[in-house]
């Protein structure tokens, strides 16, 4: 109880105390309240600001990351485009290069090549120059030749003239007309006359009759056939040592004229040729070719007299018409009849012109 009493005793004090204390507190309550409010506001302010700051920081970080991400994305895109464009540019440039080459090649090959044309034209003009030069040379050469020929002709003419008038040459006693004594030098013509050979009177050669018979061919006249012994063999040639024939004999043998055999010496048609010749002579002498017949109807009045053979009453002999080859001309090989020629004796024609085996003349 004591406690209670103590408590009771003290309650009064406590109540006083309580009151007192409350009153003290009340005195400072407002102040403290305000202070507390201030403190709290400050604190809360700080707190909120810190929070907001925190939020800002976080937002910034988020934004940073996001922006960097999106920026990177964009950048990637741009880089992609740029590289693409760069590549395309490169490809285009390369394509242009290829096309350029190809087009140039194709045009040059199939359509038009400037350098080729230039070269061609150059070559043409060079050829032209060469041709012009060559032709010029050719023309000059021709002209020279012509001039030369002219000069020669002139010279020949003058020479001939000099030869023709050679009698005008001065002699020791009498000066010629080109060598006037009143002049210092003789005329050049005088010198020419001196050099010239006087023209001799030439008798016109009698034309040799052209002979066409076989004998004329065989007479060894031409230079191409056997040489004739016009040049005499040397006289003082010594006899060669050995079993040789006498040199004159050998030479005679070597250069003897051709002596054809009787077989070929005379032409087969000699008779015909002679007749021809005779007829020609006659024709030359005749005034008229046709035989002169006094009456135009002479041949009409002429009576036909048959042959004895055909008019014989015994009939013709069959010899001529049946036994011989004349009978059937169709069977002939050539269309001419045989010519009758007598064979020659070989032995006779060669007599005295052959050597025997022993070397003796037969």
């Amino acid at each position: 109880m004591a406690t209670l009493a103590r408590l009771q005793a003290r309650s009064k004090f406590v109540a006083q105390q309580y009151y007192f204390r409350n009153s003290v507190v009340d005195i400072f309550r407002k102040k403290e309240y305000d202070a507390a409010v201030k403190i709290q506001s400050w604190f809360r302010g700080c707190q909120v600001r810190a929070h907001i700051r925190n939020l800002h920081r976080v937002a910034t970080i988020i934004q940073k990351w996001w922006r960097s991400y999106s920026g990177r994305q964009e950048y990637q895109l741009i880089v992609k485009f740029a590289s693409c464009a760069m590549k395309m540019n490169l490809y285009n440039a390369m394509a242009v290069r290829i096309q350029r080459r190809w087009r140039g090649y194709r045009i040059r090959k199939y359509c038009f090549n400037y350098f080729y044309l230039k070269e061609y034209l150059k070559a043409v003009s060079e050829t032209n120059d060469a041709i012009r030069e060559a032709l010029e040379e050719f023309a000059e050469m021709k002209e020279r030749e012509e001039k030369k020929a002219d000069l020669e002709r002139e010279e020949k003419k003058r020479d001939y003239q000099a030869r023709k008038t050679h009698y005008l040459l001065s002699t020791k006693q009498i000066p010629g007309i080109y060598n006037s004594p009143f002049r210092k030098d003789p005329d050049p013509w005088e010198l020419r006359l001196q050099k010239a050979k006087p023209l001799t009177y030439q008798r016109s050669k009698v034309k040799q009759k052209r002979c066409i018979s076989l004998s004329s061919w065989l007479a060894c006249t031409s230079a191409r056939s056997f040489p004739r012994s016009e040049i005499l063999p040397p006289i003082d040639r010594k006899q060669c040592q050995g079993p040789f024939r006498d040199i004159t004999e050998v030479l005679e043998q070597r250069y003897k004229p051709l002596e054809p055999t009787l077989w070929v010496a005379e032409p087969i048609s000699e008779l015909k040729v002679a007749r021809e010749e005779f007829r020609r002579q006659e024709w030359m002498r005749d005034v008229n070719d046709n035989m002169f017949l006094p009456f135009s109807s002479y041949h009409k009045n002429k009576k036909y007299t048959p042959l004895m053979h055909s008019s014989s009453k015994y009939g013709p002999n069959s010899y001529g018409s049946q036994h011989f080859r004349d009978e059937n001309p169709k069977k002939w090989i050539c269309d001419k009849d045989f010519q009758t020629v007598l064979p020659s004796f070989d032995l006779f024609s060669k007599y005295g012109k052959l050597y025997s085996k022993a070397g003796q003349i037969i």
Partner: protein
Amino acid sequence: MSQRQVLQVFEQYQKARTQFVQMVAELATRPQNIETLQNAGVMSLLRPLLLDVVPTIQQTAALALGRLANYNDDLAEAVVKGDILPQLVYSLAEQNRFYKKAAAFVLRAVGKHSPQLAQAIVDCGALDTLVICLEDFDPGVKEAAAWALGYIARHNAELSQAVVDAGAVPLLVLCIQEPEIALKRIAASALSDISKHSPELAQTVVDAGAIAHLAQMILNPDSKLKRQVLSVLSQIAKHSVDLAEMVVEAEIFPVVLTCLKDKDEYVKKNASTLIREIAKHTPELSQLIVNAGGVAAVIDCIGSCKGNIRLPGIMMLGYVAAHSENLAMAVIISKGVPQLSVCLSEEPEDHIKAAAAWALGQIGRHTPEHARAVAVTNTLPVLLSLYMSTESSEDLQVKSKKAIKSILQKCTYLPALEPFLYDAPPNILKHVVGQFSKVLPHDSKARRLFVTSGGLKKVQEIKAEPGSLLQEYINSINNCYPEEIVRYYSPGYSDTLLQRVDSYQPLTH
């Protein structure tokens, strides 16, 4: 005694006949005697003498007849009507060479006048005997026969065909190979007469192997032979490409060019004709000629001669230039244009001028480069004056107009074009203004020059129908300049300026 007297009568008669024939033959050589002889009835007197017993009289009679027939075609017709030809043809085969020669001469003299007379000879069957005469041993007879055949063949294709059918060509080709120059000449001329008519006839000549022999003879020193040889080759080459190639293949090319330097004018002419006939066919053949230096030689040849001899050369240049622009360029660098313009201004004859104008047109029509080369030589004014001249022939006018047009349409060389603004007729002015309208928008220097030289003023003065091509050209020229300048140069501008002065009210304070 009495026989002697009788024979003397005959002798006298023969002498008189001989003398008569000889005198007639002599007289017939002079043209002034011919009419008298004709009136005296010489034909009827000569005819029986052709059948005379004495060969000399026959020959001389034939000679006299030939000379008479040679003179004009009336007498030749008289020979045909007098039935002399069958007799001649008959004896052509029979008689000696002198008579053959004389008879062939008569045939030639008759046949040369007209196709009808030549046909009459053919109808007589003369061709076969003439061909036989070509086989004769004597060159004189061959020559006469070849001559007669050539004169018959030259008229038309049918007669030529008849000659070919008679088998003359191989023999003529043989005649070319003979050593006698005269025979070669005549045979070549006959071949040329045969081959000139048609490709088939030319082909027969080629088939007979003529070209090789002819090509060898180009270098022959005899100029008359050269003429004929070149003429045959050109007559062969003119027909077709194949024939021209055959001729070229005979390796005539550098050799022919020497003939262009020959002394003889006709050799030159025939040589350039040959080159022309070859060049005209294809660009390849032309190119061959260009590569052989033929163009330069032809140009030199044109420079060295006058008149008609130039003509084939001028045409050859035209043909070569017409084929392609490269060939035209080759002509230009061979200095062909100045030579042609010399021809154009020097030659008195219209047809040669026309050919030169044509050739220039062919050269200048390809590219501006070509046109410039032509314009630089100052040929355009000459062409224009030829076109405008009333003395020029119609052909020349047409050709020069065409040339001017084709050159102007390519020409971008303005200094040469400017004079045309002043003195060209409207139909040409159109092309000139057109060229200016094409060039001026791209060339500032030329624009300036055009103004200072007064061209712009002239253009403003041209009266063009609105909507026409000319007006369009003028408009496109005007578009190249600021408006003030155009207005400044347009006619009547000073009046408008003055009007503005009148109407101007000065500001008064």
